[in-house]
């Protein structure tokens, strides 16, 4: 009995602590476990899993199961500065996987496995490109599900803007990789302006180099169901990301945004700010934010926030901000979430100044979104977004178009 452990409970608690904190090389996010390229490694979701419980699987057209993804009913148009290389390349291109992304769910893994081409955009080293590179994907048939892969490489010390513009009618899944070299600055915009019958599941991952800065903007207006996952990690200290988002759900639409910032390098910064409005019966938005601050990520600063404005009865907004913190040696970390209806006091104030009620409502919604829109920093995009907000308001809330 000499080698019996005299403190069995002490050992158990030490094991528990070791399991709870980062002691090895690998620490897993509780909400974003280790991914896999192999679709078979991801079980077919039942709807009860934490990452699937908000998504109406019945409306996914079998994408999460084994629907074929060979459809080619779409067109792609590219508008790019001559300095930028943009085009389709083979799956053996080294750009594929260069962000270090590993598919986190079954749909993403299936899209990865099914694509034999990828669309590559390269902004050369030290190039400063004023003209936004625009890739427009227009779906032609929602009956034919298709898959895609986009890799955007911003080489070191380049500065540019890339816009991914989705429209039309489609059942579409894709992976988008964004790679920022050291010191690169990139504004990336993903606009989901689909027709009402589109289903779109996208997984975007950014890898941010030393002292590089990414402004990642998601704009989701259209589609029957959009599930938008975006994640980022850092390959060196000093990297920054601003993740901005704007969505407007009408009756019957399901718009889901899932954000994950993996702070795996010290002195990095992230700011996640999403705003959405909902109107009409069955309009449903989901926002899941997660920040993982690894033990090495000392001196980082992060904040995530989500605001939802519910304009009519019958709409539902789910909003879940998360923080997973492995070190306290940081500059700051916080999160916030609000979901509410029109502020009666704001409306009362505007009406007391002689503004008609319709106009007052419009002003409140504009003020709500303008805050995000002006941070995008691309004038033509800002104008288009304000016009889209205007169109949404006139169709469902019944507000007349501003004159």
């Amino acid at each position, binding site marked *: 009995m000499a080698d019996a452990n005299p403190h069995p409970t002490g050992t158990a608690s030490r094991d528990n602590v070791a399991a709870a904190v980062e002691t090895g090389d690998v620490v897993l996010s509780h909400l974003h476990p280790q991914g896999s390229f192999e679709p078979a490694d991801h079980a077919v979701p039942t*709807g*009860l899993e934490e990452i699937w*419980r908000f998504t*109406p699987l019945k409306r996914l057209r079998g994408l999460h199961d084994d629907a074929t993804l060979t459809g080619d009913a779409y067109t792609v148009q590219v508008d790019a500065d001559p300095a930028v290389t943009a085009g389709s390349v083979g799956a053996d291109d080294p750009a594929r996987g260069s962000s270090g992304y590993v598919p986190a769910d079954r749909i993403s893994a299936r899209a990865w496995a099914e694509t034999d081409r990828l669309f590559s955009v390269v902004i050369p080293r030290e190039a400063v490109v004023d003209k936004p590179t625009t890739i427009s994907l227009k779906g032609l048939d929602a009956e034919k599900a298709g898959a895609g892969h986009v890799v955007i490489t911003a080489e070191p010390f380049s500065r540019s803007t890339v816009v991914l513009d989705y429209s039309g009618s489609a059942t579409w899944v894709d992976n988008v990789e964004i790679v920022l070299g050291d010191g690169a600055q990139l504004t990336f915009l993903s606009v989901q302006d689909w027709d009402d019958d589109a289903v779109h599941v996208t997984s975007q991952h950014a890898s941010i180099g030393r002292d590089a800065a990414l402004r990642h903007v998601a704009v989701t207006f259209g589609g029957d169901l959009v599930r938008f996952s975006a994640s980022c990690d850092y390959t060196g200290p000093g990297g920054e990301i601003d993740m901005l988002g704007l969505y407007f759900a009408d009756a019957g639409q399901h718009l889901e945004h899932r954000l994950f910032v993996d702070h795996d390098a010290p002195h990095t910064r992230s700011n996640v700010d999403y705003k959405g409005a909902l109107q009409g019966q069955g309009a449903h938005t989901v926002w899941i934010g997660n920040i993982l601050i690894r033990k090495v990520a000392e001196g980082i600063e992060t904040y995530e926030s989500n605001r939802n404005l519910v304009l009519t009865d019958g709409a539902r907004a789910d909003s879940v901000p998360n923080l997973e913190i492995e070190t306290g040696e940081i500059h700051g970390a916080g999160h916030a979430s609000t979901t509410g209806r029109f502020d009666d006091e704001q409306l009362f104030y505007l009406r007391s100044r002689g503004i008609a009620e319709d106009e007052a409502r419009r002003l409140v919604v504009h003020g709500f979104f303008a805050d995000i829109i002006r941070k995008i920093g691309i004038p033509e995009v800002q104008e288009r977004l304000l016009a889209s907000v205007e169109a949404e308001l006139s169709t469902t809330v019944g507000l007349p178009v501003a004159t």
Partner: protein
Amino acid sequence: MAAVRACAMAELVEGKPLAFEVGGTQVALVRQGAEVFAIRDECSHAAIALSEGDVESCEIECWLHGSTFSLRTGEALNLPATEPVPVYPVTVEGDDVLVDVAHPS
């Protein structure tokens, strides 16, 4: 759309909900003696199929979080669900069970 045949009376089992698709709507049918009740086959809380739950004294229970709904009115009887689930008129003609999904109550 008028009432549509969902199934034969003989297919239904006393007190055991069964799932059917009627005119594009997922419906859970429950037989209680001579009566048949039709309720939308989805809980108003977390999108779980009610047909997988238990029925007791004219109430159907969602198995995941335990909300119960009245089979007569669709009313949510306890938390976490707060919104009612649509229930549909059922008529039995001979051996046919007809459900009118166009007129929920």
